[in-house]
Structures are given as C-alpha cells and as structure tokens.
C-alpha cells in the first residue's frame, strides 16, 4: 500500500491486484509463508475495504487493467468500469468480505488448512471484484468462472469429507451449465453487435445501432442472447432448475456460506442481470421467462425451507427464495420497460433487495456459524434450543436478522420487499399478474419458516448436551455480528443509500394494497410460526404426505441423480461401447481385415505348385495380350 492516497483510476486495479497477490502467494507458497498467510489475507481484505470506501467518493471511469486478448477482430481486455452500481456492489462485497475474514479468524482458528482457506478466500475476493468491476461481458465471464473456481475450493475446503467434495463438484458443474448459457448469450451479443460486448457499447447500440435492428427484426436472436445471459445468472444465483447446488454448498465452512452463498457470489447473477437489463428489456418474452423463473424459485425454496431441520439449510433455501425474488423483480421491471424503470437511472428494486438482503443474510449466516461453533458443530435445530440465555449477542443479532427477513416494518427487509411487491403489483398483462400473489405467498412462508427456526433454535429448553453448554462466541466473531446488525438497521435509509446511489430506487410511494398484503403476510407467517413452534419439542408438521415432499426438496436431487445416471452415465456406457465396437470396427478393423483376407487369398497364387505357376504365367500372358490388343485400344485415355 503506497503511502500517498491512490489516484481514483488506480483504485480498481488495486482492488483486483491486492487480493490476487494475496491469493497466489498464499496458495503457491503457503509452506514458506506459514502463519503470515492469514495476516496477508486479512490485511489485503482490510485495505480493500478502505479502497472500497475511497471508491464511493470517486467518479465514473473506465480503466484498462490488462490487455487480455487484443487482436484485430477481437478485443477482450480487462477493463474496470466504475459507476454507481459497481461502487455500491464493491462496498457490499468488501464490507461483508472484511467482516467474514474477521469472523473466520475465530471460526477457523483450529483448522489445519487455515492457510488454504484464507488463500481461497482472497481468490474469491479477487474474482468477485472482477465481476463487479467488469466493463465488458468477456471480463465478466472470466471472473464469473473464477468465482466458480473459488467457490469450488471453499466448499471443498474439507475435501477429505466425501460430502464436501461432492458438494464442491456439484456446485462447479451446475455453475458450468449456467456458464454454458452465459457464453452463448455473450457470443450472440458479440455477433449481433459486431464484436463489441462492453456494457456501454451494447447499451448505445441497443438505443441506435446494430442491436437496435436486431431487436426489431430478429427477436429470436435477441431472445437467445437474453436467455443466455440469464442462464448464467440461473447457475450463479441458483435459480430453478439449477438451484440444487446451493443447499449442498452448505458443506463448506460457515463463513464461506455467509460470504459467498448468501451475500455476494449468488448475488452476482442478479447484479449481472441488472447490468444487462437493457438486453432483457429488448426481448419481452425473455423477461417473462425470467420473472416466472424467479417467482417459481422463490415459492419453491420457501416451501422447502419450511421443513428443513439443518440451520444452514433453512438459511440456504431462504437465500434461494430471496434470490428468486430479486430475479423476479428483474424480469418484472424489464417486462415493463420504459413504464417504471429507466435503465439509465441506477436504482433498481432487485439491487435494493440484494443490498439489504446481503447484510442481514450474512448476519444470519454468521449467527448460525456462531451457533454451530458454540454447539460443537451441531447443525440440527431440534438439537439446539434455549440458546437465548447462553448467547445473548448472537440471539439479539439473529432476532434482528429474522425480523428483517420476515419484513418487519422499518427494518431493511421491509423496504426492499415492499419495492419488489410494488413492482409486481403494478405490472400489466395476464401472464405476469399471478406473480404478485406468488410473491405475497412467499413472503408469508418466509416469515413462517424464519419464526420456526428462531423459536426452535433460540427459545424454549436446550434439547441436547452441546446446546446446554454453549457459550457466547469470542469477540472477534461477535464483532462482525454487531457490525452487520448496525448495517442492517441503517442500510434502508436514504442517507445511507445515497452514498450507494444505485442501491435504492427512487420510487417510494407505497401502494395501500401492497402495504396491507405485506403486513398480512408478516402477521400470518409470524403468528403461525409462533403458535406452532413456540414450545414444540418436535416438528408438528412432520409425517404429512405433503410435508414429505417438502422435506425431500421435491425430490429434485433424486430426479437429477436419475438423469445423470441414466442420460450421462448410461449414454457414456453406450457410446463408449459403440466407439469401440462400431466406429473402430468400421474404420479400422474392417479395412484391415479385408486387406488381411485378400492377402491370405492371394497367397494361394504362390501355392508352391510349379504347374500352377506355369498355368498362371500362361494365363497372365494371354490376359496381357488380350488386354493390350483388344481392350486398351478401345478405351484411349
């Protein structure tokens, strides 16, 4: 860190280089660095946080960081785009990142592979910053994949544990499927826009350029492009049907879950969708698909969360559900392009929710991490209980998070959810109208399952040995909780959001129906949860047939398992057999055996019988003469 304050244009470079340096040095030389690696990682994160604060005050700019590929016909440079949206997102990423680094100091204290963990964490920070700062889609894709890699490394941190290794693999592969679509989208845009995939270029071109023509005349291509970009988001933000990896990703250390799988990486999909919202606006059918995908994800995940017993899984499904909310908002806003949201204005309901959700969900996850830490890695809520007394700080912050997520008025969750509901309420068109009710239902369920979890884990009596001996976590872990709680309280208010201007939409007048619907949802959800679980010893909902469906996550895992088994492995078996039998047989063995057969037959010519030789010679002579005298003169060449 140079002594003098860095010039604004070098901020993005530093934001990328510092974590990269930290990651590489730790991952490659961790033996040499030993304990220093933790310090490097936390230090770089702290510096980056300061940089992020500095950046909040900087002006919009595009900075060339590295000429990744620059040949005639293709420029895929690493360029950092600093605008209101990226500034805000960087702030979220860096602030939560720093807190998670701090929390991890306590949480991972006894881990043998601490260095590797911090190295991967730095790698993640690097990649995430890259996505946020990306000025063009190529750069976005590059870091998109790197985020997948760091997520792979962090989920699989305890790779000796088969479940963790499998979860890491699943996460990476599912993300890859999303990236497959993302790349198609990028390529379509590249083609349609004559080789320019920078956000500014695309936007201009859509207003008056080649893309404008494409959108008008070739809606199929535009749809493909929009859906491609969306598919990337589906993978990264774990939307239906690629949602299966996120709950499994909870196998990773809990701070990771807080950072990656709640606040930042999964939000990258939404961030990217908002960045590209003009593309989606250009294809109304894509917007419809996106909105419905989000809605279905929100509802489905909320339903599943009702019947989960693992504290982290409940939060994971809750995250899914909230991400669905955001995606739905993107789709809805895009489908009403021009009517409500001017893509030039930075505020977007989805980004607002992303922003508020990031803080309270990170807090919830860290809180659950604290609980797990205190209960000696017990994650089942039915084996907790009564933690209120043992862990007052955690309890308080967790309660705040629960309320914010449930949407208690004046908490951050209330405002952002309100904004999305408002959009959903105002949309026109028969295909989109039901989404409002889905959103309300989801809100009800959210309030319900959060109350359930809170009641079961923190209230009542301790239901296990570990839970009864739990003690408050050390200060280094408690501090992030408190800071996040403060942020949760402060974040929705205009004076805070003004700094992060992209994070809050201007639109503010709450509609009466929307307000009453959301209050009703809160009341029904919290009330129902409180009644059912206030003093429950076991889950009163267990055993119902519908509840088994929820408990087993609608059997998605089993379905996918079957598909993988049948389609992938079965086909692999079949094709590999065909490859060896048919292709090899036709291309190699058949001609070879024909030649061999001929050779064998021809050996009869030299069978050793002198007379046969004489006969053959005579015949040959006659043939030759006949050929030369009778045949060839007739077929001159």
């Amino acid at each position, binding site marked *: 860190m140079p002594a003098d304050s860095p010039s604004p244009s070098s901020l993005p470079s530093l934001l990328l280089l510092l974590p990269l340096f930290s990651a590489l040095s730790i991952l490659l030389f961790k033996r040499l660095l030993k304990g220093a690696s933790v310090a490097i990682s936390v230090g770089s994160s702290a510096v980056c946080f300061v940089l992020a604060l500095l950046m909040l005050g900087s002006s919009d700019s595009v900075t060339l960081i590295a000429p990744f*590929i*620059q040949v005639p016909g293709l420029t895929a440079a690493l360029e950092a785009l600093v605008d209101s949206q990226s500034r805000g997102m960087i702030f979220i990423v860096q602030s939560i990142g720093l807190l998670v680094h701090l929390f991890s100091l306590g949480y991972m204290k006894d881990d043998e592979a601490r260095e590797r963990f911090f190295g991967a964490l730095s790698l993640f920070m690097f990649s995430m910053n890259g996505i946020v700062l990306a000025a063009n889609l190529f750069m976005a894709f*590059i870091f998109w994949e790197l985020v997948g890699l760091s997520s792979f490394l962090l989920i699989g941190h305890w790779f000796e544990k088969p479940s963790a290794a499998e979860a890491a693999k699943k996460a990476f592969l599912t993300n890859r499927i999303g990236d497959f679509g993302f790349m198609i989208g990028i390529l379509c845009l590249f083609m349609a826009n004559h080789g320019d995939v920078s956000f500014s270029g695309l936007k201009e071109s859509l207003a008056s350029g080649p893309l404008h023509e494409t959108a008008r005349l070739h809606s199929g291509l535009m749809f493909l492009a929009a859906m491609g970009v969306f598919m990337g988001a589906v993978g990264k933000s774990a939307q239906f049907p690629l949602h299966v990896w996120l709950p499994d990703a909870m196998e990773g250390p809990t701070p990771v879950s807080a950072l990656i799988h709640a606040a930042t990486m999964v939000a990258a999909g939404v961030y990217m969708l908002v960045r590209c919202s003009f593309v989606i606006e250009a294809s109304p059918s894509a917007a419809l698909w996106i909105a419905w995908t989000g809605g279905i994800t929100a509802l489905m995940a909320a339903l599943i969360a009702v019947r989960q017993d693992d504290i982290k899984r409940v939060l994971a499904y809750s995250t899914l559900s909230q991400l669905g909310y955001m995606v739905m908002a993107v789709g809805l806003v895009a489908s009403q392009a021009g009517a409500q949201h001017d893509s030039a204005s930075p505020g977007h309901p989805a980004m607002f929710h992303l922003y508020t959700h990031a803080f309270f969900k990170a807090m919830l996850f860290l809180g659950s991490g604290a609980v797990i830490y205190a209960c000696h890695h017990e994650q089942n809520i039915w084996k907790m209980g009564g933690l209120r007394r043992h862990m007052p700080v955690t309890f308080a912050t967790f309660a705040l998070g629960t309320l914010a997520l449930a949407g208690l008025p004046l908490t951050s969750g209330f405002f952002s959810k309100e904004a999305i509901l408002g959009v959903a309420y105002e949309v026109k068109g028969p295909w989109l109208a039901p989404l409002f009710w889905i959103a309300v239902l989801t809100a009800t369920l959210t309030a319900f399952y959060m109350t359930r979890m809170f009641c079961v884990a923190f209230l009542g009596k301790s239901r296990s040995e570990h839970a009864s001996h739990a003690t408050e976590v050390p200060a280094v872990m408690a501090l992030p909780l408190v800071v996040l709680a403060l942020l949760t309280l402060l974040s929705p208010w205009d004076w805070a959001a003004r700094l992060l201007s992209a994070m809050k939409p201007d639109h503010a007048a709450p509609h009466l129906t929307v307000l009453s619907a959301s209050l009703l949802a809160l009341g029904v959800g919290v009330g129902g949860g409180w009644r059912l679980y206030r003093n429950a010893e076991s889950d009163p909902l267990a055993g119902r047939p519908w509840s088994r469906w929820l408990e087993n996550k609608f059997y998605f895992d089993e379905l996918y398992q079957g598909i993988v088994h049948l389609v992938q492995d079965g086909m692999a078996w079949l094709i590999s057999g065909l490859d060896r039998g048919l292709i090899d047989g036709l291309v190699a063995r058949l001609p070879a055996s024909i030649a061999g057969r001929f050779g064998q037959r021809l050996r009869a010519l030299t069978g050793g019988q002198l007379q046969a030789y004489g006969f053959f010679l005579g015949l040959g002579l006659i043939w030759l003469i006949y050929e030369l005298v009778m045949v060839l003169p007739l077929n001159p060449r």
Partner: protein
Amino acid sequence: MSPLFIALLLPVVAAVALSRGAPLKLASTPVALANVLLILGVMLSRGFVSPEVVSHVGSIAMLQSPALNLSVGVDGLSLLMALLTVVVSVCACWQIDNKREGARAEHIVAHLISAGALGAFVCRDLLMLYAFHELALIPTLLIIALQGRGESANRLRVAWKATVYLGVGSLILLAGLCWLMVSLTPEGAALVTDLDSLLKLAKEHPLPALKQAQIGLVLLVGFGTLVSLFPFHTWAAPAYATAPVSTAMLHSGVLKKFGIYGLLRVLPGMLPLALSQAWLQEALCWALLGNILWVGWVCIHQRNLDEMLAHSSVMHMGYLFLGLAAGGAVALEGVALLAFAHGISIALLFALAGRMRAQLGTLEFRRLGGLGSHSPALYVLFCFGMFASIGLPGLANFAGELMIFVGCFGHPGATALGMVQWTAIAALWGVVMSAVYGLRALRALFQGTSGSGLFLSDPPLAQRGGLVLLASLLLVAGTCPWLPLRLIAPAPKDKPAAGAVAPKAH
C-alpha cells in the same frame, strides 16, 4: 547457416550419443534445455516483427529437379510451436525415471520425437514438413510396442493399430499434399514444394472452389487422422494410455499438433475457399462434434486416469477443428494458441499421471482417493493441469477456446445462426462435459477418503522442475495471452478497438 539447423541437429546428436552409451544425466535433459535456450534466443533475435515475416532462413538443396530443398525458417506460428516442442521435450526428459530399465531407449525416443516435431514446425517446404513428422512418428510407435505398459500382446495390438492408422493417414495426407502441389504448380513447370512459393501461387492463381474443397477433404482426412479427428480417432486414446510417460507427453502434447499446424499452413493460405463449400464445412462440423460430444461421452465413461486423459486429449482436438471450420483470423489465431496451450496442459497431466502410476501402481478411480492430503504439491499441479484443460480462465487453454468461439460468431452483420454457430453452441456443451470428467477425476483421486494402503508422496524439489515449468507456463499464458498472441497475431489496428470504449464523463 541458420541456428535452426543446430536446433534440429542437437536432439539427433543427443539421441545418437545416448544410443552409444553417453551418460543419461549429461546428454539428455541438458541438451533439451540447451535447445530451449536456442529457441528462446531465436525468438529474441527475431524481435517484434510481424508474424508473417520468415526469419532465420536457411536451405540445403536436396534435389535440383524437381527442386526439393531442406529449407528452414520461422514465422510466428512456427516459433510458437517450436517453443512448445522444446519446452515439452525438456519436461519429458525430466520426467523419465533414469533408474528404470529401458530409460535409455525412452530418452532416445524423446529426442527423436523432439527432432522430428521441431523439423516439421520450422521447415518451409511442404514435403519436408510431412517427412519430418513421419520421422518422429516411427520411434513413437516403436516405443509403444516395446516399452508400453501392460501385457505385451496388448501393447503390440495398440501399437499396430496406431501404426496402421497413422501410416494410412499419412499416406492419404501425402496424396493430398501431392495433389495440392501438382494443382498449384503452373502447367508444364517443375513441381513447386516450397511453402512460400506455393502460398504466392495460390494467391495469384486460386484454384476453383470445388477443387479446393476436394483437396481440402483429402487433407482433412489425412491430417485429421494424425490429429485423431472423429471417426479416425480410435487409435489415439489406447496409444496414449499405453505409451511410456515421456512418449505420451510428447506425442499428445507436441507431435499431434503437427496435423493442426499443417492445416493452419495449408487451409487458409492455399485453399481459402475449401470450407466455403457447404458440404465440406458440414462434414467437418459433424466430425468435430463427434470429437467433442461423442468422445466426450466416451471420456465420461472412463474409470481410469490415463485412459481418461487420453480420451480428453482426443476430445479437445475438436475445438481446434472448430476453429478451422470457423475460419477467419481470430479463430485461426485461437487455434494456434489453443494448440500451444493444450500441448502444455496435456503434457503436464500425463507427466503427473505417470508419476502417480509409478508410485501407486494403479490409476483406477475406485481404488484411489484422498491423495490431496498426502501430496499437496501434486494436488496443486494436477489442479493446474486439469483446470487448464477444462478451460478455466486464467489458465492457458481458455484464451484459445474463447478466440475460437468468438471466431465462430465473428461474422459481422450475421443475424441468424448458421451451421458453424450451431456447431459452436453444441461444442460449448463440451466444456461442461469436460468439467464433468475433469472434476470427477479430481474428486476420485485427490479428494475424499484415501484408499487403503496406497500412498503418494510429493516428488523432491529437483524433480518438480519440469512440472512447475509447465504449470507456470499455463499460468503465464493464461493470464497474459497477449504474450503468445504477439507471436502469431498482427498488432491490433490503431482505430479504437471494439470493446475498448473510452470512459464517459457523467
């Protein structure tokens, strides 16, 4: 006298010396290293000139009429491939376990392959280019037959299959090259075999499009067989899986790239219209999809690391052909870059697989696991190789693949998806497939609980050199692809390039 002749001669001399009993430690790896320095020297003395410029020219007349010269010279593409050759050669020599019986033969073969490949890459004569490749092929096949792994009957079968495939393929190739040269040579003149003269002739008197396509088909089959283009691929995987480590590294990493190199030399320059014939382009597209999807599926079925790597190497050739099918400067530069990157990554993976097999005795997935905790260094190196091979950004292969895909979509003004674009989309699915098997291997070998009684230790530092060299090349070429691209691509024009948009004031 061109320094390239020295570069060609060095490995041959080393091979001869080794066969006469020269000490392995002195005569093998150091010579290969010297060649790396030599090629680097050539690269430096060449300076930053345009990629088309042929420098370090030298020539020895072999026949006057028809004129046949052993002429050498490097342009950017040649230099990149030569660099690949010498780097992989040095690492291959480094990897050979000198204590093993037959190590000497392996060293000799490694040097011979290196010489042949180098010759093929720096030759400026179309016929000699072919000849050098063939020369490298024979020791490869012999060493597979004689020192491959497994039952002798099995390795003989594998070697024979490869021999027959490659023999037939190279003869088809020879026929195609002859046809090409004869067609381009003006009526009544002595045959032209010189690459540069042929390029000039092709530019001045282009052949009819149909004839270009016909010659292109023969060449695609010929070169394709050498590069294991579907459906002529079944020789490759067993051969790599059976070959000794150094041979597998050199053949899959370097020698196989000859076919691609040859096509890069011939197709765009001499037969520019060949792939504009729809039938040929469609045939190529189907074939390369066969490589990517069909072989990809075969690859998923493998339950053994070296067979999986072998199939994956076949699979990845599909992307190179995709670039050729797309045509256009970006895609072709991508092909060259990916060929380079793939050579490095597959060599690294084969080297690791060989090392693991030597210690563990098996590479079967179901018998292994949890090696990551025993040998973190190998784990990291393996991650490098595997993630590079599945196209992770930041490692070398990604940039090439990206350029190829972009090349497929890079037709300005196109508003509907054509054959090439749909092929590219289907080929993109291959990226997912390669992640499936790549991660499966990683998971099965290095993660999870360790297998019983099998132990893997990190190699001592001195023996990591070659592996680290390859891995760091992957990283450097991956993070800074503009460095290798500077060799093969012209500098971007001065006009504000697409994508790089000046910052806007708000």
